[in-house]
């Protein structure tokens, strides 16, 4: 399905190479967001972002309310974490997140008396009015400060602290803010449901973020496999000075660098950031969180999560508190089917397989995809025959098989010659490799293992 008449933006709305996995979104796309019944307890990691971890600011056995600060850090690239439920804290512990990080975490036992639940909780977070008339009364620094204090990080999965992106840098002026509604990972529908059910806070958040960053132009980019979301966002954006464009459905369209090429025809320099080309990219859920933080003074404590895949009994989209266990979410969706073979935090391309279902969800958890054993079965790794398919699909124009070979041999000179640090680990190469070489894993290990210069 392509959208006609979305060619307001002259660029080609796509990027070179990439792959076209089956988007599998129909499993959960039709399910309106449900509010997760209050779990008995949550476990809130003190680091849910890229940057300095937070230090715990609460003592064990303290009564706390929703939104109380649990952890914070003095570092600039960091984001505080807040209580997502009312209750009593227990002694801090350590939890292993799906990405393998061991981080401190504060357990909270939920009290019976929660201020908001069910529909009221939804209305508090995404419902009601989102007046955009007062946005010019906020100073840019004021917005960035509110975003920091609300602990907002990139909710598309990268979890980079948002206030850092929005902070103005006199050397690198920003002209355009891209609101990322691509959701290019197969299966995931949390951003899609948000755009359908709560477009107003996204638009309000986009205007606030643009004011903070100094961007004159705001573009909401949505893959054209979601025509109704494009339509909905467009009608909400009418008159607000926000452009909504459909971009081609091609993985990894939601990657910042690919998206900037698609809607702006600008190339982020190798090793650089979007701000080097005057662009900031913010996910739709992040934008909505910005609106809530600035207009309602509320921190980021809940998010929409897709629980989907052929291994889940009834796939759903759920509004869940940060810190709820994956097990609780899956249970709410009827549990795993007999064929379930792998539980993935995030999408099937870049997500992490879970070893322990009692792990808590974080601010960056956009979905849980449960695949069947058959879907994940892989043939044994064989030798590279240099077929070049990885080269043909790499969205960054790299030669994945050579980088992986260099990483495997720990030949760092060769790894650099083939631009190992430019790799965004999107997984296109491994997705198509007929020899089943774990290219992404090798490259990731190489990046971690190579000496810093």
């Amino acid at each position, binding site marked *: 399905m392509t959208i006609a008449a979305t060619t307001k933006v002259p660029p080609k709305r796509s*990027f*070179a190479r990439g*792959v076209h*996995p089956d988007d599998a979104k129909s499993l959960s796309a039709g399910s309106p967001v449900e509010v997760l019944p209050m779990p008995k307890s949550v476990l809130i990691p003190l680091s849910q972002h890229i940057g300095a971890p937070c230090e715990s600011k609460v003592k064990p056995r303290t009564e706390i309310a929703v939104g109380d600060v649990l952890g914070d850090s003095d570092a600039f690239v960091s984001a505080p974490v807040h209580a997502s439920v009312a209750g009593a804290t227990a002694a801090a512990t350590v939890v292993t997140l799906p990405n393998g990080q061991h981080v401190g975490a504060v357990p909270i036992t939920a009290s019976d008396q929660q201020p908001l639940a069910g529909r009221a909780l939804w209305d508090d977070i995404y419902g009601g009015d989102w007046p955009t008339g007062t946005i010019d009364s906020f100073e840019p620094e004021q917005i960035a400060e509110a975003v920091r204090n609300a602990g907002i990080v990139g909710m598309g999965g990268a979890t980079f602290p948002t206030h850092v992106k929005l902070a103005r840098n006199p050397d690198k002026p920003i002209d355009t803010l891209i609101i990322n509604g691509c959701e290019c990972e*197969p299966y995931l529908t949390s951003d899609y449901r948000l755009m359908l059910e709560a477009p107003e806070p996204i638009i309000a958040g986009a205007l606030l973020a643009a004011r903070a960053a100094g961007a004159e132009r705001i573009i909401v980019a949505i893959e054209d496999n979601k025509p109704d979301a494009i339509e909905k966002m467009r009608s909400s954006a009418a008159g607000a000075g926000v452009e909504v464009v459909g971009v081609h459905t091609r993985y990894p369209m939601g990657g910042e*660098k690919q998206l900037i090429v698609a809607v702006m025809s600008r*190339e982020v*320099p*190798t090793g*650089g950031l979007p701000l080097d080309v005057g662009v900031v990219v913010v996910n739709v859920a992040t934008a909505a969180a910005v609106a809530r933080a600035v207009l309602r003074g509320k921190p980021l404590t809940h998010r929409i999560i897709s629980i989907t895949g052929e291994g889940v009994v009834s796939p759903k989209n759920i509004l869940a508190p940060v810190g709820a*266990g994956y*097990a609780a979410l*899956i249970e709410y969706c009827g*549990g*795993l089917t007999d064929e*379930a073979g*792998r*539980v993935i935090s995030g999408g*099937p*391309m*870049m*997500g992490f*397989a879970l*070893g322990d*279902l009692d792990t808590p969800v974080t601010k960056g958890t956009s979905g849980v*995809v449960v695949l069947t*054993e058959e*879907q*994940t079965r*892989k*043939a044994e790794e*064989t*030798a*590279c*025959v*240099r*077929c*070049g*398919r990885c080269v*043909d699909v790499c*969205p960054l*124009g790299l*030669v994945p*098989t*050579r980088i992986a070979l260099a990483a495997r041999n720990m030949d760092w000179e060769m790894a*650099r010659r083939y*631009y190992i*640090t*430019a790799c965004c680990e999107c*997984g296109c190469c*491994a*997705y*198509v*490799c*007929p*020899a*089943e070489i774990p290219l*992404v*894993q090798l490259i*990731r290990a190489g990046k971690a293992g190579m000496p810093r210069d």
Partner: protein
Amino acid sequence: MGEEEEKTEQVAPVLSVAPGPHISAARSMRRVMIDVLVALVPAAATGVYVFGWRAGMQMGVCVVSCMFFEALFQKLRKRPQTIGDLSAAVTGLILGLSIPWTAPWYVGFIGSAAAILIAKMLFGGLGSNIFNPAMAGRAFVQACFASEMTTYLLPGKIGPPRAVEIISQATPLAAGKFEQVAYNLQDLAIGTVNGSVGETGAIACALGGLYLIFRRSASWRIPLGMLAAAAVVAGINQALTDTVMTVGHHLLAGGLVFGAFFIATDPATSPLSSRGRWIFGVGTGVLVMLIRLFANVPEGVMYAVLVMNMTVPLIDRWTVPKPVGGRVQK
């Protein structure tokens, strides 16, 4: 989730953990090789049609021998068997298609041994070989059995070449080079001329090659670069000399089309990047023509491919593609 965890503990683990991506669109190596075998069917069928059952024998001997030698090597080295990936069968079929139908059976057998044992397995097996195994094997038997490998008889006339009918028995390229006789272009296109078993039918080879490209099992840049470069050199030759061999003759005769689609495209022995593939294709095409025009042999595909194989590491090193965002790392 208590139930799930109990299950996990009691029986074999229900949930697996592995790095992403967790889904795959990969066609297996075997599937890629089957594509090549299917793509070779038109060329093989033309060979059998033109030369008779002995053409089929050459292919059969080479396919079976190549698989036998690979199995033998893995057995001796106590390594897992790899003939299931069918790459040995592809090597065998290409080798069988590139020798004359008149050659005795042991030519194919020995060629297969050289191709698999020396050119492929000693270098580390599939993907690690420097030279195209089929061409290396062919070069080996060309050196060992010079007369058997260059004796092209018309079908049904097994025996020493007779002085009369030398033109009709010569390959089109030899006739053009040494006798100044040009073949009918239509015969060259269909393949009703003399030559190695599978190379004579230009249209059949191109059909199979297009299938390979359509299936994305071969690069399109290498054949296009090779054919275009050969056409340009042949065109220059046609314009500057009084040769009877036109561009069409050079394109359709001999093993050029067969080699462009099936030999030069061997991924293990050709460059990785698109720029590298252009260079490789053009280089091979030019070399083929230089050998045809200036060397003392009528055909140059085999030597051109083998020479270009040696340049692949260098081409790869020189053609690291520019990443999106430019070369300078910030």
